[in-house]
């Protein structure tokens, strides 16, 4: 999966949680919570959906790395490369 593919998945998951959000308006370096008004339950659902869609394990200690679009894509790219390795 390329970073662009991962970004598409992240944006798709986010807009399912916050249907009123235009994915094009999401700023890459700003935390999702601040710009999308996500609460802790939304964030848990976000992590769960990424886990289901990408098959990566996301320990709770890594949650802060998923707070922004840039951070989430970089983190998930590193995890999925590792997951794909033999």
């Amino acid at each position, binding site marked *: 999966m390329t970073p662009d593919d991962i970004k598409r998945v992240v944006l798709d998951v986010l807009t399912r949680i*916050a*249907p*009123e959000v235009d994915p094009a308006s999401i700023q890459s370096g700003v935390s999702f919570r601040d710009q999308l008004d996500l*609460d*802790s*339950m939304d964030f848990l659902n976000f992590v769960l959906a990424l*886990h289901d869609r990408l098959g990566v394990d996301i*320990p709770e200690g890594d949650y802060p790395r998923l707070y922004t679009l840039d951070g989430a894509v970089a983190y998930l790219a590193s995890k999925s490369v590792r997951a794909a390795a033999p």
Partner: protein
Amino acid sequence: MPSLGSDMEAGTLVQWLKHPGDAVKRGDIIAVVDTQKGAIEIEVFEEGVIESVQIKQGEKVPVGTVLAMIRGTGPERPRVPAATAPPSAPAREGPPTPAAVSAPQKRPHEEPSRLRVSPLARKLAADLGVDVTQVEGTGSGGAITREDVERAAAALKTSAAHKPSAPTARAGDMRAAIASAMARSKREIPHYYLSSTIDMSGSLAWLRAENEKRPVAERLLPVALLIKAVGLALREVPELNGYWIDGAFREGTGVHVGCAISLRGGGLVAPGLHDADRMDLGTLMRQLTDLVARARTGSLKSSDLADPTITVTNLGDQGAEAAFGIIYPPQVALVGFGKIAERPWVCSGKIEARPLLTATLSADHRATDGHRGGAFLAAVDRLLQAPEKL
């Protein structure tokens, strides 16, 4: 028409899902009702056969109106009015106001009875201003799905004739309902307010260790611990758990914690977690996740809203330090939790940075005094110091 909260005065019967001659049992969903809180699925609390329906689809009626008659299955069982609130629920205080009764009645198109629409699609149609009778269903058996409604809404948008946006009207209805209930609460309930600062280091450390062991889908949020602690503390101070009705306190038949859930786009509902004091944390978290998801997609059931015995509001995520709430009548107490944040805490004569939580209680002075309220907050604190026992 069951009361789904003291702020509900009337509801519109959107669709009958059961018809005369159909057998029903406790828990079956027999109808969908549109309220100021959105589309709600109405459950039945009796067993028998539907003898007649008294209200037509599209009709708006006040709370308390008989919707259908059910004939009991046993020979001695009498006919009972169906779709009333469960037996443990509080009766709505006082008759409906004249304004509610004489309010203009919305009468949407009468639908052919064969029309099959899921509650979610119906809710979406209402929100998007789509007439479901004009939508072509592509689901199984021609059922109208969410996608069908979205397609129809997109087509409406491109036509010049589309109506003003319905979501605004829905949000306005909900604001009016909240305003009415909260104004009544402030008018009638002599509130007192208490607050207590709770050291959450033990709870959070336990939660971190616990979540490391749990798969993603079973991880817990701090709010699960808070709700469980409230449930258990209410066993110690039961006079905060129940209703003020007809000048007297009536204790709830269980601990049903209403959870204030904010909706995207504005508004708030407080459906209940039944028997929150008896659930293990995993079950409580699962049920809370389900409740939040259903509240936000407009698919709550009547039993979710009929009988919470107390409300918990958790504003923590928005960064507020404390929440002093307004009691949701006829309940007699509301518990507020603020943000868990590192602040200075004095421990054994030293100042340390600790994750602290401000817990508040708004309570009805007709039912309790500050002494008992204080005992309740102290119990919540004590319980949160031993999270492994929750």
